[in-house]
């Protein structure tokens, strides 16, 4: 600001201007005093430009002649304006994002493709969230810590961690481990470089096989699913067949037991019946025998279709369709 006031050098011209102004405004007659007032006014103007506000979530780092002076939190402040003082107001509470392997919706293959521990290639995209825990270090200790250094560190850490694990682990079980190990490694590098940055979260957005081999990987997944399905069906078969077999077994045994009971009871009954009949028979053998015989014949004979009484020395031939007709007899 002082430099801009160089035109004061042409003093006679200035006093002419001042004299002109005096015609309208009553200014002090003494030009020297007037000059001092003008200078004081300019100093005041310069000084007032040192007023600044720090918004909530921001911090201001103040330097006096280039040397760090103090930090200022949210609120209205004054500090020496340039060129004596310098200030950097930074949103320290804001969570910053770093996208590795993608930008928005677009994939960046050169960042995303990396070697795994078993010399495969995997496509991994990482989102890092970080904030500034030490503004002084952030501003004065590293060059471009939030951009270039973060990028270098994130890429190095992720690739080192993924490079230590086989692809199947990276794709499935070890995802969490990749995240936490990457986070730890990143933080240690950032601390080593005195960046004042704190890594809040490291998230794998997308971990997948490269597009060129995606089909082959999908086929393995399909094979696994088929396997699970087949195992399920086999289990279902077991659950269907075994109970039926047990049911069959129970039925066969119960049937046998039923038969046993019936058979024994029946024979018992028959035995009892025989015993009773025998008892009576023993009392009157001859008559009982005849009576039983005749009773049976009486019951049987009326049922018969034909009774032929013939000569025992003849052979009788019947037509099987019409048994009523005797076709002939052979006299011997």
């Amino acid at each position, binding site marked *: 600001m*002082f430099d801009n006031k160089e035109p004061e*050098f042409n*003093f006679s011209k200035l006093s002419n201007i001042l004299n002109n102004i005096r015609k309208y405004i009553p200014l002090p007659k003494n030009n020297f005093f007037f000059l001092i007032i003008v200078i004081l006014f300019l100093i005041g103007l310069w000084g007032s430009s040192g007023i600044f506000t720090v918004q909530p979530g921001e911090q201001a780092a103040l*330097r006096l*002649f*280039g*040397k760090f002076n103090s930090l200022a939190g949210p609120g209205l402040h004054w500090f020496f304006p340039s*060129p004596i003082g310098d200030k950097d107001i930074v949103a320290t509470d804001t969570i910053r994002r770093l996208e590795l392997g993608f930008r928005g919706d677009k994939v960046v293959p050169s960042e995303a493709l990396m*070697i795994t521990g078993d*010399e*495969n*290639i995997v496509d991994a995209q990482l989102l890092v969230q970080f904030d500034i825990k030490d503004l002084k270090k952030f*501003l004065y*200790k*590293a*060059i*471009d810590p939030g951009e270039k250094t973060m990028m*270098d560190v994130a890429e190095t850490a992720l*690739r*080192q961690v993924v*490079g230590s694990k086989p692809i199947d682990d990276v794709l499935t079980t070890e995802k969490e481990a990749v995240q936490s190990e990457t986070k730890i490694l990143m933080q240690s590098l950032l601390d*080593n470089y005195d960046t004042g940055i704190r890594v809040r979260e490291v998230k794998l957005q997308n971990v997948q096989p*490269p597009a060129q081999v995606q089909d*082959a990987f999908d*086929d*393995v997944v399909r*094979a696994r699913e088929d396997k699970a399905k*087949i*195992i399920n069906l*086999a*289990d279902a*078969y*077991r659950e269907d*067949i075994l109970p039926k*077999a047990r049911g*069959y*077994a129970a039925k*066969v*045994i119960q049937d*046998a037991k039923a*038969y*046993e009971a019936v*058979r024994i009871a029946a*024979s*018992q009954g*028959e*035995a*009892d019946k*025989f*015993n009773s009949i025998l008892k009576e028979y023993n009392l009157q053998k001859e008559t009982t025998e005849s009576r*039983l015989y*005749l009773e049976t*014949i009486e019951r*049987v004979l009326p*049922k*018969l*279709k034909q009774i*032929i*009484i*013939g000569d025992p020395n003849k052979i009788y031939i019947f037509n099987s369709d019409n048994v009523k007709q005797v076709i002939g007899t052979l006299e011997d």
Partner: protein
Amino acid sequence: MKRSYTAILIIILIIFFVGIQSMFIVDETNTAIVTRFGEPIKTSTNPGLNFKLPFVDQVRKFEKRLLIFDAPPDSLLTSDKKRLVIDIYARGKIVDPLLFFKTTRNESLAASRAIDIISSELRREIASDLQVEIIKTNREQIMNKVKQQAGPKIREFGIDLIDVRIKRADFPEEIAESIYGRMQAERKRKADKERAEAAEVDLTVRSEVDKDASIIKAKADKEAKIIIGNAEATAIKILSEAHGRDPEFYRFLRQLETYENSFNANTTIIIPKDSNILDSLFGANKFSSMPSK
């Protein structure tokens, strides 16, 4: 009046100019050295307002923050004669500004020299390692070795080498296709294995189930037969005990039963006419109505 004003003003300006010339600001992010007629006379590492002789002393400022040495990716040969494209970066710090000024003069020149040194150390180091070590196990160690080798050489420029890192170790583009081919073959092997295992489980479980079911059924059949056999035995025992008391009478009764059971409406019986069964059964006039003589 006018002349004295002008004189005062000129004097003020001269004082001001000389004052400006005898002061210099060192920022938090800088170190500075003061040279007199090109010859360095002192270093000022403390930030803030510093002083020098006006006009004769010159101030050179250097970066005090960590310097970024970013090497371009380089295709290197490993000890097992495989190629890897390795991208490294390093961080260094000017710790001896005077030495730095004497040897390199500016940061970008220093960076390119440092990168040359680190790259050649890296090439030598990679040439003695197996590819798999670089990818998987040894990365940290390799970087430490490179740092130890390159560190003293870079220190000669007044720069402390803080860290060397392998940012990327990639397969060269031209072999990427064969890597993908290998990955596909590996996946196919895995898929085939899954399918074979599925078939194994399927056959194993089903045949086991069939076996178990057959055993269960066979055991039940066996048990049933034993039960039936025992039942028969018991029945025979009961009956023979009873019938044994008069076998003749039993046979007679059984015969009658047989007649009753085996004669029905379709039966034709032929009885010899002189059979005494008939004599005892029917009267003589009954016989004339019979169809046969």
